[in-house]
């Protein structure tokens, strides 16, 4: 039972409650850094680390943090992890760090992270909170990567900097510029909506059929 529960918390973040596709949270870094797949993955990893770390800490101290100042406490915990992530990236991959620029520190203001602390980590035991954070963070990385990959393939004809098409490929420059981010995400959300609705219709059909056969 316990195992199932934590697996459930993990899985829901990846698809059903995917932070980007289903909840439309954390948009700012989502669009800003996804002009190439590598940036998207670096950003995703940083967010992953911050989300899991701060969920763990918040949930561990959930009985100690006073209710009135909880938001400030969460933000300071998050800011600490972001500072660690910032300096780690600077040390390990200075080139990517330079491209991401101010967006690494801006993870602090990612509403996804604060939202999870408030809605989940501050109310549930550590193990569940960490599973939830892992799931949400994975969902976020998946979303970032898919957006980054689509934009890089269309806008630059490459993936992770490796050219996919021949010399004749005319890059669709607009996709790696800001408007492309909005358009691509709009289209991805469109597919998500469409898929969800097909699924709902299918489930309703199944329910109808069952009722009919009874």
């Amino acid at each position, binding site marked *: 039972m316990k195992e199932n529960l934590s697996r459930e918390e993990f899985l829901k973040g990846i698809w059903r409650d995917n932070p980007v596709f289903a909840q*439309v*949270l954390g*948009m*700012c*870094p*989502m*669009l*800003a850094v996804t002009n190439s797949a590598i940036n998207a993955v670096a950003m995703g990893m940083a967010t992953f680390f911050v989300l899991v770390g701060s969920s763990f800490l918040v949930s561990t101290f959930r009985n100690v943090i006073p209710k009135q100042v909880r*938001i*400030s406490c969460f*933000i*300071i915990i998050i*800011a*600490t992890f*972001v*500072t660690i992530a*910032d*300096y780690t990236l600077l040390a390990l991959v200075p080139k990517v760090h330079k491209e991401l*620029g*101010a967006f690494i*520190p*801006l993870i*602090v*203001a*990612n*509403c996804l992270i*604060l939202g999870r602390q408030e809605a989940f980590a501050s109310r549930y035991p550590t193990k569940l909170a960490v599973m939830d954070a892992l799931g949400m963070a994975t969902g976020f990385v998946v979303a970032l990567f898919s957006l980054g990959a689509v934009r890089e393939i269309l806008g630059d004809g490459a993936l992770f900097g490796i050219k996919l098409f021949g010399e004749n490929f005319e890059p669709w420059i*607009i996709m790696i*510029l*800001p*408007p*492309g*981010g*909005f*358009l691509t*995400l*709009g*289209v991805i*959300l*469109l597919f998500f*909506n*469409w898929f969800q*609705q097909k699924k709902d219709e299918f489930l309703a059909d199944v329910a109808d059929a069952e009722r009919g056969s009874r």
Partner: protein
Amino acid sequence: MENFAWVFISALLVNNFVLTYFLGLCPFLGVSGSLETSARLGLATTFVMLVTAVCAWVLNTYILIYAPYLRLICFIVVIASTVQFIEMLIKKLSPALFRAMGIFLPLITTNCAVLGVALLNVQQQHNLLQSALYGFGASAGFALVLIMFSAMRERLATADVPLHFRGAPIALITAGLMALAFMGFTGLANS
């Protein structure tokens, strides 16, 4: 002098915070349902951004040189307390304005555009006047885009939008077209 005007115009139009830096998207997509609330939010954000830009500059120049790794935490605390302070100030000075702004004031704390202004000011090494102008330009740009976008969304709400496009997808695609239009301002950079 030209330089100062350029800092302002650049933050307002060419490098618009919402449409080219993607900052402050949460209120942009979340609150922009009606024209009136967007105008109020834009006003409140302008206040906070201007004050934060100046405070963050002072803090960064005189105190944080001794401890750069505390920058992020300090900025967050500055923003949160600025918002709190402005809330109290407005409540005292003009209760009518306070009621009009309502819940939007506390929400500004989590607006990444505000933190973005503070961080970008540091990154671009602006001096005090430039920082203030940059903050003002950025927030005016934010308010401008927010108001324009909400006017469009009011129209969209009554339009016959295809089923699957409703909600976030059509909003994002509209924003994309707006960003495309704003790219036209890039030409200002070379003149």
